[in-house]
């Protein structure tokens, strides 16, 4: 217990001694993880908003409520035999209800109505065209098919949004990786300087028989703390920015939902913090591995 307190005290002491370098390392972690977490959150917003268009579905046929299971299976077989159709799958009423809970997570009134009438949403067939350009042909054929109540197809806005997400995600990931490497290098540098500043102390520690872990752990804690602080700043920044976007961009079309579910933020946020700590540990380990003072 005494040594644990000692190790944390030593780790914190260096924050003051090397404030500027430590700040640089924390900022690098912050920027890198902001991009990473921002990419994840943006991807999630697009995913939520294009939920029913996922997996290349471009046409949705809502079925009449009085369709029997046999009739539905027969209809599914028939549509899948059309040459323009690559694949087709069935979304039941309960599945449609679950999907709507996510889709309308920012719309209190809609959620209330849905929860009062879980049967409200129709079952549907989701169609993936062989060629995305062919979707209008499928729409026309479906509209004249018995048992189909209405047909909806993905608009240009959906396609643009998905294309934007894919493009941005590649760019953001590349940037995040480059900055992540920079963050690890900067943390390694701060630890290197911390070791240098304490080389006399380390020499004496070794003389009097401090174990390797006793000498090294404060530096590992320091690296991990720098990563953790950078990660926490990144998560806070994105959560605040996303909240501001939800509040400020109220004139967006109804079908765009910027709200993100809390469990996504918690899960991915924790992962981002873990990444920060890992970057810190990797950086400080690299520094400890190359530093001669610490070799026995």
């Amino acid at each position, binding site marked *: 217990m005494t040594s644990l307190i000692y190790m944390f005290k030593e780790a914190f002491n260096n924050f003051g001694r090397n404030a500027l370098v430590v700040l640089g390392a924390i900022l690098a972690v912050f920027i890198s993880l902001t991009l990473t977490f921002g990419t994840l959150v943006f991807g999630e917003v697009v995913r939520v908003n294009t939920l029913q268009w996922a997996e290349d579905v471009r046409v949705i046929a809502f079925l009449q409520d009085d369709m029997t299971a046999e009739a539905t299976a027969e209809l599914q077989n028939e549509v899948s035999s059309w040459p323009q159709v690559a694949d087709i799958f069935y979304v039941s009423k309960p599945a449609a209800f679950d999907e709507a809970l996510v889709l309308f997570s920012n719309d209190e009134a809609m959620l209330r109505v849905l929860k009062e009438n879980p049967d409200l949403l129709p079952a549907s067939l989701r169609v993936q065209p062989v060629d995305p350009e062919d979707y209008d042909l499928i729409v026309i054929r479906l509209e004249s098919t018995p048992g189909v109540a209405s047909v909806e197809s993905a608009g240009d806005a959906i396609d643009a949004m998905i294309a934007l997400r894919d493009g941005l995600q590649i760019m953001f990931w590349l940037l995040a990786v480059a900055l992540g490497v920079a963050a690890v290098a900067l943390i390694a540098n701060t630890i290197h300087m911390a070791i240098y500043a304490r080389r006399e102390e380390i020499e004496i520690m070794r003389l009097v028989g401090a*174990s390797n872990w006793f000498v090294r752990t404060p530096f590992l804690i320091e690296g991990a703390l720098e990563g953790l602080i950078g990660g926490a700043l990144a998560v806070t920044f994105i959560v605040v920015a996303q909240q501001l976007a939800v509040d400020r961009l109220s004139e967006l079309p109804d079908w765009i939902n910027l709200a993100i579910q809390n469990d996504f933020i918690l899960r991915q946020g924790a992962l981002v913090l873990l990444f920060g700590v890992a970057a810190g540990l990797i950086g400080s380990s690299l520094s400890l591995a190359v530093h001669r003072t610490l070799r026995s």
Partner: protein
Amino acid sequence: MIKLENVTKVYPGGTVAAKDVNLEIAKGEFVFLVGASGSGKSTLIRLMMREEPPTNGDIWIAGKHASELPSWKVPYLRRSIGTVFQDFKLLPTKTVYENVAFAMEVTAKHRSVIRNQVPQVLKLVGLSDKADRLPRQLSGGEQQRVAVARAFVNRPLILLADEPTGNLDPATSVGIMRILDRISRTGTTVVMATHDHAIVDAMQRRVVELDRGRISRDESRGIYETRDPQPLPESSDTELFEETQDGADIEDDLDDAIDEETSKALASAIESDRAVDDAGSSEDGLSDDEDDAADDDEVTS
């Protein structure tokens, strides 16, 4: 306690710092390592504290095969060794108390043990009233006493001292030697590398003389100079040169008169210490410490 068998140390570049050294030092012995600069005294100290492994040969320290010890186990070996150096190696930002406590903190000693032991060992070296001073507020002799306190606070089985009086004037050296002598009498094995003729002559302890990495003399109650000097071999011109280049030696020659006095002072000081101890007096508050240390030795050795 310490055993070196056919130990050879060759540094990269071919410098032979120790050659076929065989040396056995028993528990509680006080041994001087003497010899010219570059004769291998410091190398032997470094080998004994496992600062570096020997090129060949075996070293046993406090019952452990030090030359075969994996590097992660070295810290645990070091806990049975105290070290004192010419340049004190104190932390300038820590007080006297903190410098001594540091040796206990980093070996994960409990705070209550630290609070109990540090004042005791500061009393041993006579610095109780300066516990709150920083090293720069102390004289050289006082700084070295702090270093000795730090080396002894974990009650090591062995104390290795590399020129501990090298930076101190003769009168101050006497004080350090008195403390080392007291530590030795607690059962701690003391090995001290030194250039200081006066101290070696006054203490009359075992003297191991080194010459270009080899042991050239080993006497149980020796003095600094070889009693029966051998003519220098022709090849030793450089050694002779190094000897005269050494400031300490020149100073020793110039200050022979002072050394005589110092040496007498040291001898009589140590005599009187012994007389006090033999009478079983605990006036100096050390008897308890010494008993503790002796107990520790029995348990660990």
